[in-house]
């Protein structure tokens, strides 16, 4: 895995008077889990779409290693975006452009606890399950960057926590570089190696904070809450973003 540099000088939508993103710089270390935290509508999804090469109308560059290139992407959208006419397993198989041994998918399904529904059509799944399928699909392509756009929003608290734990388990088994968008600070602290706080438009990086809590203590909610309180105390500039 290689480091990735994102450098967006300017992104303005054709109809907008103001830039959505300007002078945005972010370096992703290999296998690092980064949470992007910022107010809604600040341009986080725009940023992810640029990295995923869905939006090419911007001024800037993306470097994979030393190369000007787009990284190989696994994108987990806010809506799972599964094909309703394909079963869970077929949805995952479809993104693999070269044939892969079926054990890889078996394993991913197993970790995400979806083995029993692999032949079901997505309409029969709950939202939480569909999102887990989307996570498997993204991991299955073995991407250079995993983009996650609030993948656990509008799940009830226990379902969201379960999904987060499964995600972490999968990520620890198969480390990948992750860009995870959220505006839930507790969720960000529970997941990330590093938090990146973003201002509203034009989007810029306000501060970057490395989280020192060891991985094995991340499920401890009081440790996360204590860290959150301290964070807000020591960094008053991020309070307005939440």
């Amino acid at each position, binding site marked *: 895995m290689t480091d990735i540099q994102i450098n967006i000088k300017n992104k303005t939508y054709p109809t907008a008077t103001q830039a959505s993103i300007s002078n945005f710089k972010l370096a992703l270390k290999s296998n690092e889990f980064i949470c992007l935290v910022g107010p809604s509508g600040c341009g986080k999804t725009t940023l992810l779409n640029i990295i995923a090469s869905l939006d090419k109308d911007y001024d800037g560059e993306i470097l994979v290693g030393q190369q000007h290139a787009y990284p190989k*992407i696994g*994108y987990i959208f806010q*809506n799972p*975006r599964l094909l*309703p*006419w*394909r079963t869970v397993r077929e949805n995952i198989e*479809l993104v693999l*452009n070269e044939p892969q041994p079926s054990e890889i998918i078996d394993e991913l399904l197993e970790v995400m606890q979806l083995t029993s529904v692999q032949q079901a*059509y997505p309409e029969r799944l709950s939202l939480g399950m569909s999102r887990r399928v989307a996570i498997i699909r993204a991991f299955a392509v073995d991407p250079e960057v995993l983009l996650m756009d609030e993948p656990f929003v509008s799940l009830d608290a226990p379902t969201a926590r379960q999904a987060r734990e499964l995600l972490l388990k999968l990520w620890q088994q198969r480390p990948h570089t992750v860009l995870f968008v959220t505006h839930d600070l507790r969720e960000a602290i529970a997941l990330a190696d590093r938090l990146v706080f973003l201002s509203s438009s034009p989007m810029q990086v306000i501060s970057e904070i490395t989280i020192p809590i060891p991985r094995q203590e991340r499920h401890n909610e009081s440790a996360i809450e204590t860290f959150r309180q301290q964070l807000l105390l020591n960094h008053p500039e991020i309070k307005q973003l939440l």
Partner: protein
Amino acid sequence: MPNLKKILPTLSLLAFLAIWQGVAVYLNSNTLPTPEAVTQVFWQDCVSGQLPFHLGVTLLRLVVSFSIAMLLGCAIGIMLGRNKKMDAFFDNWLVIFLNVPALVTIILCYVWFGLVESSAILAVVINKLPNVIVTIREGTRSLDQDLLDMARCYHFGKRKTLVHVIWPQLHPFVMGATRSGLALIWKIILVVELLGRSNGMGYQLHLFFQLFDVASILAYTIAFVAVIQLIELMILKPLDKKALRWRR
């Protein structure tokens, strides 16, 4: 009452035949033969090979012109639905072709290209094509952009995107165009045959009209309706079932 629901279609069919029989017996006229007389003519024409021959010729024309119209229509419809500039350019053409009466197209095709098979087929295709294009264009415009974006960032490529993302979404529109297309095309084909061909259902019906042979007209009509029903039951319904199996 599940049993009653099952036999109701049969009952209604029997009622229809009974009314027909009653009116025909009451009028006792050459212009409305009884179901029995029609069945007799139907059987005779089947045995003599006349009906199967003319029905077959018409069906062949139907299959050829329908296939051409659907293939071209789907391709052009998807293209116009995906490309705004082309759509803006060709929209007027579509409106013109949609509104030219079928009879005018048929006459012009025969006048310009002669009384030959290919101009008959061309006339049918020109009549049907704009309908297919409009239906498929609407379908393409309503494609889910989210799924298309998903396909793009997972590098599906053109073929995979078409087969797995676009086509399943277009399925209801294609089936709609198919059903309305079959109904429309066979009516137009009869006119085409009546005006410029020396075989097929249209030609035969014209002949029977001149002879005032209503029993034959009804026999041919029933044969045709039955064939179209068979196509619906044997081909379209199973296709629907297979394509929509994922729906709850």
